């Protein structure tokens, strides 16, 4: 047999990004998280290195999200308005490796909570769990700049992952991240060139490359997933091919996006062909996450405990088998 395994080696390597600081490093986290470092496409252990496993983070809220699906609420109904308690449940019961505090309630149209209230929510989570934190915002520039500045200052030294900046609004938040030693998420709307451009803008203000994670914008299953999927594949291929301005780890939001769609909210009674709603909630998030994992995602922001358990299990099997366990 003249068959040889066809290997393709990469000239580039994905940047290793660390977030979360331990007491030695000036923070209070029990450990740091490193993502990135890959020198091959996802799952391709046969032709490159994947030194760090993809990370599953779960999200807590400063206000109860609109249209939160009923079956999902069952898991959290006693803690959902309380970020500290919800974070504890996500970490201790559902195995979250990191927690994202989404400050949606500070949006002027969605509660207009103050920057100080946002700091309070973040502090509650810092106290209740020891995993590295992600701080997630929204797109109201003026307000989120004010909020993130305060949050960055209040959490100085913790090396939080500040999620996110965008091309039309990056300077204030990036400067705050620089001043208080945080890592940043650079979000662009499903486009390779825009993603690259924002990374260049950040490095031009001397933002260190090892502190950037990209968010190519998640479209969920059935609502444009294929665009996110292909843009991520293209970004990853360019990054591994040597384009350093595209060689960053990628974050995706399968949880946030999956609960917003009609499929998450309607019952089996109304849509019999769509099947059991509770299962469907988890399946929708699992399918979105697994396909984006295959496209290059390293950091997964998830909601459904069953989806989290499943995806974590699959990542573990994959990497344990690679490590010969």
């Amino acid at each position, binding site marked *: *047999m003249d068959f040889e*395994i066809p290997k393709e080696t990469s000239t580039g390597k994905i940047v290793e990004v660390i977030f979360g600081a331990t007491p030695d490093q000036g923070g209070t986290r029990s450990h740091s998280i490193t993502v990135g470092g890959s020198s091959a496409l996802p799952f391709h252990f046969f032709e490159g290195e994947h030194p760090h496993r993809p990370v599953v983070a779960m999200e807590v809220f400063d206000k109860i999200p*609109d249209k939160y699906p009923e079956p999902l609420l069952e898991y959290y109904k006693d803690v959902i308005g309380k970020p500290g308690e919800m974070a504890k449940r996500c970490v201790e019961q559902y195995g979250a490796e990191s927690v994202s505090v989404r400050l949606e309630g500070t949006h002027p*149209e969605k509660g207009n909570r103050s920057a100080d209230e946002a700091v309070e929510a973040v502090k509650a989570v810092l106290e209740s769990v020891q995993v590295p934190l992600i701080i997630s915002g929204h797109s109201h520039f003026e307000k989120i700049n004010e909020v993130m500045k305060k949050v960055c200052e209040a959490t100085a030294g913790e090396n939080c992952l500040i999620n996110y900046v965008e091309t039309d609004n990056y300077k204030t938040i990036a400067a705050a991240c620089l001043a208080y030693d945080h890592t940043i998420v650079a979000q662009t709307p499903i486009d390779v060139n825009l993603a690259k451009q924002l990374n260049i803008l950040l490095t031009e203000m001397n933002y260190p490359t090892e502190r950037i994670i990209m968010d190519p914008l998640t479209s969920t299953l*059935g609502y*444009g997933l294929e665009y996110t999927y292909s843009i991520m594949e293209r970004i990853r291929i360019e990054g591994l091919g040597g384009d350093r301005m595209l060689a960053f780890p990628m974050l995706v939001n399968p949880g946030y996006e999956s609960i917003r769609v009609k499929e998450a909210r309607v019952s089996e009674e109304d849509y019999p062909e769509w099947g059991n709603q509770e*299962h469907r909630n988890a399946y929708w998030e699992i399918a979105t996450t697994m396909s984006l994992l295959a496209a290059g995602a390293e950091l997964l922001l998830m909601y459904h405990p069953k*989806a989290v358990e499943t995806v974590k299990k*699959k990542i573990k099997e994959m990497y344990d088998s690679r490590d010969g366990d």
Partner: protein
Amino acid sequence: MALSGLDIFKLLPKTNCGDCGVPTCMAFAMKLAQKKAELSECPHASEEASAVIGAAATPPIRLVKIGVGAQALEIGNETVMFRHEKTFVHQTGIAIQLRTSANEKELLAKVKEIERYKVERVGEELKVDLLFISHDSSNKDGFKNAVKLIKENSTKGIILDCPDREALQSGLELLKDDRPAIFLREEVTDTDIEIAHACGTSLILLADTFEDLNNQIEKTQQADMNDIVLSLNSQEIGQHVQNSTILRRSALKKNYRPFGYPLFTFIEVENEFDLMAMASAYLCKYDSIIVLPTYDRAMLYTLLTLRQNIFTDPQKPIQVEPKIYAIGEPTPQSPVFVTTNFSLTYFIVSGEIENSGVSAHLVVCDCEGQSVLTAWAAGKFVGETIAKFIKDINLEQDVKTRKIVIPGFVSQISGDLEENLPGWEVIVGCQEASDIPAFIKNVNLT
């Protein structure tokens, strides 16, 4: 692998004799490369040229068909590793396992339910493609009876999973014109190949290693049996995806003929969430048939939606039908929004209007599936075209509102639209769909 015009030119006689009907060999080579001519049109072509060009014309992954009629499944013929390079050609066939150990009533109910299952999504009817019949009963006639029942109650293509060769033959006799496939749990034998030849079936080969698979393929190819589908046993998801990648890459990039066949997987796990995760990854990464051990509508709908996404041609944006969409339960007094018929634009805009909790009319113009800015730049989403569409669909009869919201990114068309649409006030909306709920709250739209 595709040859360039220049590659082909090198193989031609270079005499410019014109006997092929084209003045020069170079021009003929270009036509061949574009598949607008056949090599046989050149009476002077060498044997080498025929061999090389002939091989290049053979698809690197063979087309295999299972089943007959409108429900027949075609798989293979794929040409790229990544969907953005061109497109994935044939959608992954989804199969559901049925067991002969089930009692007849149970089996019949399941077959009928699977046969009935269909769900529409973005203009496509999503269905199960195949039935996978596993013989696990001790009843001697169990297999034959099950095949009979399925044939009488289903139009789906059939894969036979039957280790007992005698029972298999008895089942195959009922499927003479139905082009089923046979799943081989053991290494392929001469008898298997004979059966496949005699009954016109394809064979699904299963192996533990690339070498083992390679040997089995050689054996079937030598017996002139080419309708085959490949499957490698794997321990876990990562190994499975790697195996599939290696097989597909060998066929497409290395022109390694033995692996130029579609791939198959039977996911034999019980936990439904694990199953969902594995099926999702395998659908993205190259399996052309996925067999699920259970019939679960929520899982089917999720997987079929993923399939629709992944197998969409990236060169052709999915369009939604241009018309007035009711978001919520609008009355004639409800606000009116206008956008283009690019599916993603429609999904996001309609979703955000829905999130606002306000009912509205969403006018989706025919822009050949382009997004707002692209359609505007191409002159398909401007005052004149929007006004014409609104008149064509008789919007003025259906709604009483005389305010219309346009996307913020095309604020420059507002004057033009007002001119073309007398009696209407044009309101420039927000640029980002995510700001729609806030916009609706703050602006008087009726």
